[in-house]
C-alpha cells in the first residue's frame, strides 16, 4: 500500500514540525535537572537545545521515526476502510504533540522567576514613590486651586470648588508620576 505524493508531502511536513516537540520533551528530563542545578532559565536552555538540534542528526532521525510510525498507523487505518485523507487526518490528530507536563513546567518557571524577581526594598520604594507623588500632587493642586480661586475670602464663599478641583487634578498627576516611577524601576530591574 502506497500513499499519493500530496499525502506524502503532508506527512513529511507534519513529522518535521511535530518531531521537534517530542524531541524537546525527551531531552528536557536531563535539561530540567541541569536548570535546577545551575539556576538557568528554560528559555536559555531551549536556545542551546536549538543549536544542538541544528547541528546533529538527532532531529532528522526523530522526524523519520515519526514519519514511519505515522505511515504504519495510516496503513492500518486504511486496511480498516478509511480513505487516505481520513487516515491522514486521524493520524495527525492522534500523533499531534500535547504535553501537560510541559505546560505545568512553564507555569512553574514563571512563578519561580516572579518570586526570584521580588525584592521587598523595591516594593517599599515603589509604594513610597506613589505616596510621595500623591501628596505632592494634591498639595500643589490644592494650593494652585486655592490661590487661583481668590484666596481665603473666596474659599469661604464659592471658591472652595477651585481648591477641590485643584486637589483632584493634583492627585491624578501624582498617581501618573507614581506609575512612571514604577515603570522605570521595573525596566531598570530587567
Amino acid at each position, binding site marked *: 500500500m502506497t500513499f499519493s505524493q500530496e499525502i506524502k508531502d503532508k506527512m513529511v511536513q507534519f513529522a518535521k514540525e511535530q518531531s521537534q516537540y*517530542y524531541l524537546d520533551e525527551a*531531552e528536557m528530563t536531563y535539561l530540567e535537572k541541569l536548570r535546577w542545578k545551575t539556576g538557568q532559565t528554560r528559555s536559555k536552555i531551549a536556545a542551546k537545545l536549538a543549536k544542538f538540534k541544528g547541528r546533529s542528526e538527532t532531529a532528522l532521525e*526523530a522526524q523519520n521515526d515519526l514519519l514511519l510510525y505515522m505511515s504504519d*498507523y495510516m496503513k492500518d487505518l486504511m486496511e480498516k476502510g478509511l480513505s487516505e485523507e481520513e487516515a491522514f487526518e486521524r493520524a495527525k490528530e*492522534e500523533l499531534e504533540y500535547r504535553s501537560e507536563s510541559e505546560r505545568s513546567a512553564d507555569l512553574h518557571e514563571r512563578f519561580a522567576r516572579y518570586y526570584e524577581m521580588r525584592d521587598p526594598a523595591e516594593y517599599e520604594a515603589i509604594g513610597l514613590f506613589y505616596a510621595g507623588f500623591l501628596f505632592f500632587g494634591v498639595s500643589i493642586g490644592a494650593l494652585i486651586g486655592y490661590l487661583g480661586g481668590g484666596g481665603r475670602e473666596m474659599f469661604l464663599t464659592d471658591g472652595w470648588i477651585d481648591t477641590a478641583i485643584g486637589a483632584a487634578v493634583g492627585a491624578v498627576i501624582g498617581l501618573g508620576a507614581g506609575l512612571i516611577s514604577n515603570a522605570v524601576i521595573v525596566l531598570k530591574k530587567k
Partner: protein
Amino acid sequence: MLEIISRGETYGYEIAKKLHQMGFEGLAEQTVYALLLRLEKNRLVHITKKPSEMGPPRKFYRLNERGLEELAAFWARWDYLSGCIQNLRNSGRDDGDLQSGNQG
C-alpha cells in the same frame, strides 16, 4: 514497552499494536512514539536500521544489557508494590470479618 521489546526485535508501530492487543486500547498513539524516543535517549535499547518502503530506514529495537536490568528492576518494584497492595486488601477483609464476627 520494555517487556514487549525484550521478547524479540520489533519496531515502533508493532509495539503499539501489541499493546493494543494486550488490552491497552486507550493508549494514545503519540505515547508510544514519545516513549521510544526516551528509551533511545536513556540508552536502554540496541537499534538496528533496515530499509523501509517509505524511504528513511526503519529502526528495530532490542533491549541491551541496561534495558534488561531496567526491566528486571521494574518487575521487582511491581512485585513488591502489588504484594503490598494485596496484603492491604486482604488485611482489610480480615479485619472486616473479625469485626462482623465480634458483632455476631
